[in-house]
């Protein structure tokens, strides 16, 4: 029973919505929209579990005085402040000052950290290519040359070196690059369709976790 019910649910819903895909009628359309809305409402509750884990993790850390435990207060405070201000400032409560504070914190505290984390990528592009773009094998050499030409094609210096370089770079992007992407995508398409089928048919059970075996 513990595993039969979930497997039945997956089978029925899986087949129903595969069939729905081919039916354009109004009833079908309404079913689809309703399912999406219900799914959204249902999934929202999983957030409780997630935040439970986060809070639990940090409370334990503080209680047990684990390494760097003091920083856990920072996480808990951030969670509480943003969560509370966001809900109080949102449409359901509608406190204007809370909304203003929430926006201010988002713009000047969270967003800068977000962008800075993103910007770190620029440094890592350099260090990764330095370390990995080495002609260790034929394949690695091909990768290196393609990357090199495309980089040269972007900067004005490349076009000055030889005016055809931007065209070659575009050719690499459009022909071999596009072809390999299509090949990968076709494989991924078949692989993910197979997995969807396996889930619907109850062959793929990793998601049942403990009760799947």
């Amino acid at each position, binding site marked *: 029973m*513990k595993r039969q019910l*979930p*497997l039945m*649910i997956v*089978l029925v*819903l*899986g087949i129903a*919505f*595969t069939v729905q895909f081919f039916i354009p009628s109004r009833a079908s359309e309404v079913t689809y929209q309703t399912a999406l*809305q*219900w799914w*959204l*409402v*249902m999934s*929202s*509750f999983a*957030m409780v*579990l997630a935040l439970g884990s986060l809070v639990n993790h940090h409370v334990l850390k503080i209680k047990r005085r684990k390494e760097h435990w003091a920083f*856990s207060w*920072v*996480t808990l405070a*951030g969670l509480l*402040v*943003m*969560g*509370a201000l*966001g809900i109080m400032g949102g449409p*359901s409560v509608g406190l204007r000052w809370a909304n203003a504070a929430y926006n201010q914190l988002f*713009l000047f*505290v*969270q967003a*800068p950290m977000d962008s*800075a984390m993103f910007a*770190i*990528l*620029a*440094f890592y*592009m350099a260090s990764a*290519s330095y370390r990995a773009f080495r002609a260790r094998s034929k*394949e690695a050499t091909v*990768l290196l040359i*393609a990357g090199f*030409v*495309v980089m040269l094609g*972007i900067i004005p210096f490349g076009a000055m070196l030889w005016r055809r370089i931007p065209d070659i770079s575009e050719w690499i992007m459009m022909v*071999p*690059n596009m*072809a*390999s992407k*299509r*090949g990968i995508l*076709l*494989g*991924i398409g078949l692989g993910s*369709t197979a997995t*969807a089928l396996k*889930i*619907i048919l109850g062959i793929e059970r990793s*998601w*049942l976790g403990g009760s799947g075996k």
Partner: protein
Amino acid sequence: MFSHDIWVWIAAVLTLAIFSFLYKENPFYRFAEYLFVGMSAGYGLARVWNNALVPNFINPFWAALTAERGATGPLLADPRFWLIVPALLGLLYICRFIPSLSHLILVPIAIGLGLGSGMGLAAIIQTDIIKQMQSAIGDASNVAAGGWPLVWGIVSLVGVLTTLSYFFFSREHKGALKYSANIGIWFLMVGFGASFGNTVMGRVSLLIGRVQFLLTDWIHVIR
């Protein structure tokens, strides 16, 4: 020279704290990291509440409960009332905290998976397989575009076929398959190198944005 705005200072100091990670992990980074994790989780909570639960459940459900029944028919005929079902199903997630009922969490997960794989199955066949096939055949047979584009279209088709052959798992890569899979690897490697090279400018631009913020808004050295 420096900004007089406390918020700009906070943003600048946190930006530098994140960047300090490049030197090594340190208490400033650690502070920013713990703050970022906590704040963004709180932000996520508020977003789920404000953008998912309130407009899709709380508001319509409340409206159904408080609506004047005479005009809109009985409560049970109101689709907004039935939003209570997904909400109850959602509560099953929380059964996880009750050991004897913890297996019930599989019900909402199963619903999500059933919907996801059902909605996905034929759609993936359409977008990932049929669409890609059409583009590949289209490029390789575009006689109207003439000469070189047609040649490149055919080269692309060879690339697609050989890349596909690399992903054969149930056969040892020997003979013709080995030959074709090897060509496939070459296409893959050119593609990876090119994508990497093509991404550098975008990533550097993000860094430029941050440096501009530090040098313009925080220290007024550039205008």
